[in-house]
């Protein structure tokens, strides 16, 4: 292994040595990772493990978007947050766990050597282009249908690969959109589902470790794209059923020439994106208040 040309510092060589030893990842994969930038939208059930592993593995710049605050009923699955941060913004809590944070905390955390950028705001058509354009890869870790359409459309107009995960109840789903000529979210789902089919974790519940598994898989797929290794899960979808411990990886359709956003004759521009009403399109709000549980 000696005498390979690389630009890793001695500290990085030591920190990431288990990656450097891998013939199929190695110095080149780690070097690619350190130069990459990844945006994670949502610091909840999916975003928590995704952020932990993306920070740990050495992504050069990691962005976190979330407008929410930490609540006690998040703690069963959002393992990046700590009880001390209940009531405080998730972005602050997640960033503090990933790196040496504010002056208040004298100790550093998982990886103080990477850059973390905090966006303590809801993602909207008004700020999405500006934020997403600064990253190589986007991870959708949100929890509602309008956000998923908005993020996919934004990735199409900006040409960014999208690692999309979802979890509800005891099931999870995962795919990569808009990557290497593959389909976008709208190619698969041109028409939004009826609102009655769009359950949320806050309404229907979720076993905490299920988004944990899907979020880790999102981190893996983002690392594969950023590191330029392996076969990313594009044109395929992973379907996970926790209760029966069954996993299917299925082949899905390719890019649709008829797609209104990424198709051949589409003229969906940045300006049209800015003016598109995703809440009206999906008949659902970008964020809601949770229901009260009466036991």
């Amino acid at each position, binding site marked *: 292994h000696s005498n390979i040309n690389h630009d890793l510092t001695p500290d990085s060589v030591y920190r990431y040595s288990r990656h450097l030893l891998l013939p199929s990842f190695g110095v080149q994969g780690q070097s690619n990772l350190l130069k990459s930038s990844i945006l994670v939208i949502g610091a*909840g059930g999916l975003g928590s493990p995704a952020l932990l592993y993306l920070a740990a593995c050495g992504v050069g710049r990691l962005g976190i978007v979330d407008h929410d605050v930490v609540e006690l009923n998040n703690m069963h699955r959002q393992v990046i947050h700590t009880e001390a941060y209940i009531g405080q913004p998730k972005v602050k809590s997640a960033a503090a766990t990933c790196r040496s944070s504010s002056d208040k905390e004298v100790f550093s955390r998982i990886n103080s050597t990477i850059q973390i950028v905090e966006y303590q705001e809801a993602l909207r058509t008004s700020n999405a282009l500006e934020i997403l354009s600064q990253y190589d890869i986007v991870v959708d870790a949100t929890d509602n249908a309008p956000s998923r359409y908005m993020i996919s459309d934004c990735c199409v107009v900006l040409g960014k690969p999208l690692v999309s995960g979802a979890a*509800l109840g005891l099931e999870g*789903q995962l795919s990569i959109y808009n990557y290497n000529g593959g389909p976008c979210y709208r190619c698969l*789902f041109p*028409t*939004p589902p009826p609102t009655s089919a769009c359950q949320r974790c806050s309404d229907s519940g979720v076993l905490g470790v299920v988004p944990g598994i899907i979020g880790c898989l999102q981190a893996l797929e983002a690392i594969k794209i950023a590191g330029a290794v392996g076969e990313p899960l594009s044109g395929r979808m992973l379907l996970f059923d926790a209760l029966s411990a069954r996993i299917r990886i299925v082949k899905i359709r390719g890019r649709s020439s008829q797609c209104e956003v990424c198709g051949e004759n589409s003229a969906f521009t940045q300006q049209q994106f800015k003016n598109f009403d995703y809440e009206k399109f999906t008949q659902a709000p970008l964020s809601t208040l949770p229901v009260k549980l009466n036991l």
Partner: protein
Amino acid sequence: MQLTLEFGGGLELLCESVKIHKVNVDPPNGTEKFIMKDLLSWVRTNLIKERPEMFMKEDSVRPGVLVLVNDCDWELSGQLDTTLEDKDVVVFISTLHGG
């Protein structure tokens, strides 16, 4: 002809929360082929116990439902016209948005 039908992503709630159904179906009178269009109406009649509008819209599945024939998106095999064969596995899964 025996088929295995699986429902997921919440669609199992429409069939008494049973996810996997082994069923026997036969081509409609006067035909030889059994296609996905036939299966949808068979499922609607025989398996869906409530809220059929959560499963179908007009003569296809509702938006947000993926259909997989032997682990392959039915868009790749002809959608409603996909011919089914003995022992095929058909999955109906509703896309999730939670996280």
